């Protein structure tokens, strides 16, 4: 016979560390807290911390309205880290990444659609002479090919007719000389789910789109779905963690996000220089819309656009 002798009999305030504790953990923590009280004036969660916590926990326990969308028992849940392709100097020690939760029965194409990369939104072309005619086509619509590389097999996106097999070049290269890469194959992405793959945890894999925008993917965890997880299939792939990238503001007003970048601009103090839409037009064009000065202007999409 077991009485549930739950040791927490006294209702004490969990914020206060008891003074006479015999636990080393608490003594250390108390010192750290005291140090924090001395140095920090306002001890509150900053917005990045709130965002991170919200993202991690917003989907916990959710149930779908439609019972067919319910995730079944025995479903696998994978945690993937998708790294950003930016190579800044300050990211040498730890590359920024976003964490996505994916169900085992989901297709690779669903993951591909959920990866939001700023290179998908780029607009190509120089538009200094016709700033109003910046086209609506973003790179995502123009260059739809993409592939995943897992364990020696390239999974190409072949859903649309304009998708090309980007991995063919790599396969031809590896077969041309005996480079020791074994047999690389190429298959269609839409035919496979995560349950069909054999994966290594912690091993870096690749996702490539736009021809040369490469993201490293690392699988950090595979586990069975749990009662407390989000059980709504529509919410997966679920983004749980995201790196906060600072947006570049306009050089002039320092308030709005930059939408244009200029090179070789005689009117700008630095090269390249970023402007928001309003300041760009006010500086570079007169009242009739004629171009003033020499410059090259490109539409700019900031990496922090997904914040």
């Amino acid at each position: 016979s077991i009485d549930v002798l739950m040791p927490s009999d006294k209702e004490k305030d969990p914020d206060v560390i008891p003074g006479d504790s015999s636990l080393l953990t608490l003594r250390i923590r108390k010192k750290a807290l005291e140090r924090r009280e001395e140095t920090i004036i306002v001890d509150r969660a900053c917005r990045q911390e709130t965002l991170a916590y919200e993202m991690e926990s917003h989907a916990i326990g959710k149930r779908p309205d439609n019972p067919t969308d319910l995730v079944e028992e025995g479903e696998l849940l994978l945690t993937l880290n998708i790294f950003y392709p930016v190579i800044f100097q300050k990211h040498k020690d730890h590359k920024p990444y976003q964490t996505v939760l994916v169900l085992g029965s989901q297709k690779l194409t669903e993951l591909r659609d959920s990866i939001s990369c700023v290179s998908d939104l780029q607009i190509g072309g120089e538009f200094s002479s016709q700033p109003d005619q910046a086209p609506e086509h973003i790179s995502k619509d123009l260059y739809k090919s993409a592939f995943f590389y897992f364990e020696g097999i390239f999974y190409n996106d072949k859903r649309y007719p304009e998708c090309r097999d980007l991995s063919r070049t790599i396969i031809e290269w590896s077969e041309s000389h005996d480079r020791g890469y074994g047999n690389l194959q190429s298959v269609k992405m839409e035919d496979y789910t995560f349950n069909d793959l054999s994966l290594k945890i912690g091993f870096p894999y690749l996702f490539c789109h736009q021809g040369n925008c490469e993201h490293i993917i690392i699988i950090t965890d595979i586990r069975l779905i749990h009662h407390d997880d989000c059980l709504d299939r529509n919410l997966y792939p679920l983004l749980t963690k995201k790196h906060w990238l600072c947006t570049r503001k306009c050089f002039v007003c320092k308030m709005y996000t930059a939408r244009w970048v200029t090179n070789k601009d005689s009117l700008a103090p630095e090269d390249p220089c970023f402007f928001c839409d309003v300041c760009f037009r006010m500086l570079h064009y007169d009242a009739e819309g004629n171009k003033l000065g020499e410059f090259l202007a490109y539409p700019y999409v900031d990496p922090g656009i997904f914040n």
Partner: protein
Amino acid sequence: MSSVPGLQADCEELLGAFQEADTVRFERFAELWRERRFHTIFYGRIRALERNKLTKKTLELAQQYFLPPYAFQIRVGALYLLYGLYNTQLCQPKQKIRIALKDWPEIQRFQQDLIDSQHYDAAYIFRTLRLARAFHFTAMPKLLNYRTRKKIQENEFKEEFKDPSNRVNSLITNDVLEELMNIHDHYQKMKCVISADRSQPDKALSLIKDDFVVTLKNITLEHQEWQQNRMKLFLNAKETDEASNKKEEETLLESEGSERANALARIKYRSYSAVVEVS
């Protein structure tokens, strides 16, 4: 932060006290827990995000003591510790205990052992945790994270907690001895069959010692006793400045050793009777 400062020391201290108490009853563990007010380990003004991380790390640390190569008593203590930590955590919804797939058969064997040895309180506690859905069934025991470690942390386990690793015993197990016995019998019978005198093997065929299996058993038993004595000496030397008696630990080691000794003695008895039959 890659580990909670001071946590390992606190857990080891609690488990050490439990080991010294030389019992596997939950009441005793609960007393030790209440003495130290272990539930306060989550106190301190910690915000939600940090609290989740902290609780995860605490459960991960406690979970390590639940698996082999730790001694039986330590594993039961770890089970109680996990139960206590899981129920007193302040996170909402509760953080779960991660168990890797490869460890499940071992844990199920452990549970069967508990039931067989009639430690029903421990078995009940394990069952309660299962029913409360406290476990995550994962592929790998540790959740990976990607920060460059400044130095590689060596996880030092306390020597006293470990089962004395008896390599000789794990090689010459009961099964191996039984097999050897059977093969030896068979061999003797074959020799009898092909020799002229049906009742005993030819003198020319006696190429091995007839009782080598028994000798092997004796040697392994001797080795085990030697190792136990060495452990005792080691422990005695380690704590010569303390006045407390080390009888509990010696009896613990002896009781574990005596299980194996009993098993070996059983085989010894059977082999003696078998030897009589053959010759």
